[in-house]
């Protein structure tokens, strides 16, 4: 019953647009992969073995020891319909893999949705911390404390040489994947993005577009994350990511200044056109929505658009996804119906009075 709440409203803690550098870093995510000793990894587990893991993890997550870290609600994947699962994926609370592939998959969510503990994804336990803005250390602090509470009770699969043992060899060692979602419109407009993406892989990091795209990422949103998990300490992994992200942030700021100084009119024209279209359009495709919302977000950041909040842009990012649109409508929609609803939702949001 109460778990409906997670699907009904579009906002999550990460969308608040309040954290440090929130004009460029939309959100920070930290994921810790852990497995239990003497239990086959989820891929090979039988239903009853997988269920046992859910029970064990849930018991700890809802115990008194975890109270200080949050109050967790259990949501089982087999109790959700496909649209509800899609909404959780679009809100970044669970992975597509947990939604679609897992057996006895479940997620434990805290109240503000900043912490989701996935059970029986690729690994037995995946602790995910999702915060607004640029907060790598804060995310690690939260994640490692939750990890400690689990470890007091559960026997982790840990090896002196290889570290925390994971189902996939790409996660072994620390088991951590830290990532920041960056909004980089000026680097894309000035065509510097490919040069930067190529440089990044030299330092053990990976970039990908949000929602699966590459260098032509939807909405100019890029996700930067660590690739190495073995042979580097958590602190080094985080500080490496931190310093590279900082350099990209600086470059994006420089590119924004350059555009404002050298192409002021063209930049304003582009932003106002997008704003105008979203204010009046009657149908909007998802790709166009992401691009126009990126323009508006940039317009807010550089002070051209004043009566829309970044928070609203983040909300729209999720609300205009197919799963959320359909769940909100309470039915399956054709692509044409979706485009129409999307346009209406955006119009309503951009003109709503109570917007912060």
């Amino acid at each position: 019953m109460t778990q409906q709440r997670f699907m009904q409203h579009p906002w999550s803690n990460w969308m608040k647009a309040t954290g440090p550098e929130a004009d460029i870093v939309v959100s920070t995510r930290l994921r810790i992969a852990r497995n239990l000793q003497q239990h086959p990894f989820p891929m090979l587990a039988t239903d009853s073995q997988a269920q046992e893991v859910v029970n064990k993890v849930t018991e700890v997550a809802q115990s008194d020891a975890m109270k200080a870290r949050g109050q967790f609600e259990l949501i089982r994947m087999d109790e959700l319909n496909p649209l509800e699962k899609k909404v959780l994926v679009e809100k970044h609370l669970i992975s597509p893999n947990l939604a679609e592939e897992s057996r006895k998959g479940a997620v434990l969510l805290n109240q503000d949705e900043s912490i989701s503990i996935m059970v029986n994804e690729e690994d037995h336990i995946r602790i995910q911390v999702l915060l607004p803005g640029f907060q790598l250390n804060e995310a690690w602090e939260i994640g490692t404390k939750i990890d400690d509470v689990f470890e007091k009770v559960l026997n982790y699969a840990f090896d002196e040489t290889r570290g925390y043992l994971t189902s996939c060899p790409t996660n072994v060692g620390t088991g951590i994947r830290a990532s920041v979602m960056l909004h980089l419109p000026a680097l894309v407009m000035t065509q510097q993005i490919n040069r930067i993406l190529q440089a990044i892989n030299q330092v053990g990091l990976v970039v990908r577009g949000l929602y699966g795209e590459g260098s032509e990422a939807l909405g100019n949103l890029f996700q930067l994350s660590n690739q190495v998990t073995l042979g580097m300490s958590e602190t080094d992994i985080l500080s490496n990511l931190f310093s590279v992200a900082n350099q990209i942030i600086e470059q994006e700021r420089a590119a924004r200044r350059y555009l404002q100084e050298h192409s002021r009119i063209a930049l304003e024209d582009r932003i106002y056109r997008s704003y105008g279209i979203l204010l009046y359009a009657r149908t909007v495709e998802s790709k166009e929505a992401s691009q126009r919302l990126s323009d508006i977000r940039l317009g807010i950041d550089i002070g051209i658009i004043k009566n829309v909040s970044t928070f609203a842009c983040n909300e729209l990012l999720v609300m205009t996804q197919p799963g959320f649109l359909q769940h909100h409508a309470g039915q399956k929609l054709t692509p044409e119906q979706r485009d129409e609803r999307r346009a209406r939702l955006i119009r309503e949001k951009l003109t709503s009075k109570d917007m912060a």
Partner: protein
Amino acid sequence: MNCEECGKRPATLHLTKIVNGEKTEYHICEQCAKEKGDVFGGFGNFGINQLLSGLLNFDPMIKKEGSQAKEGTAGTQKPLRCETCGLTYAQFSKSGRFGCSDCYRFLGDRLDPLFRRIHGNTQHIGKVPERTGGKIKVRKELDQLKSALQQYVAKEEFEKAAEIRDRIKALEQKIAQS
């Protein structure tokens, strides 16, 4: 452009993945993306199976260079497999996934080249579990103290040796109690 996987539906997802300096582009349809899992929302590792089998195919070449490691298996024809879950090395290289945590032990050194290619390293140096890892920390300290003890004894510095002996005793008691 048509999907690279099925060749039938139009490719709607275009993904660039950069691994160890190599840029790979994928153009696939939504249906195949779902079957591969992990594309949307920025989670997980798209196409990691393909990438890993790519990595694992390099393995035999690397083995030739450092062939001392396989002494144990050289004489026998038995396939390398995890005795707990039954996963063979061949199955692992196809799926890119371990079956259980014991796989790491049974596949052993054979995994070193793979870890080196993915991570540039083979040894964990990060967090150690507080409760179960406590013993590991103490054991490492014990090893160090014991070799220090030998050195002091060899140098006939008996006062220092006695000091170290006391610390070793204390640590050994700590292990016995836990």
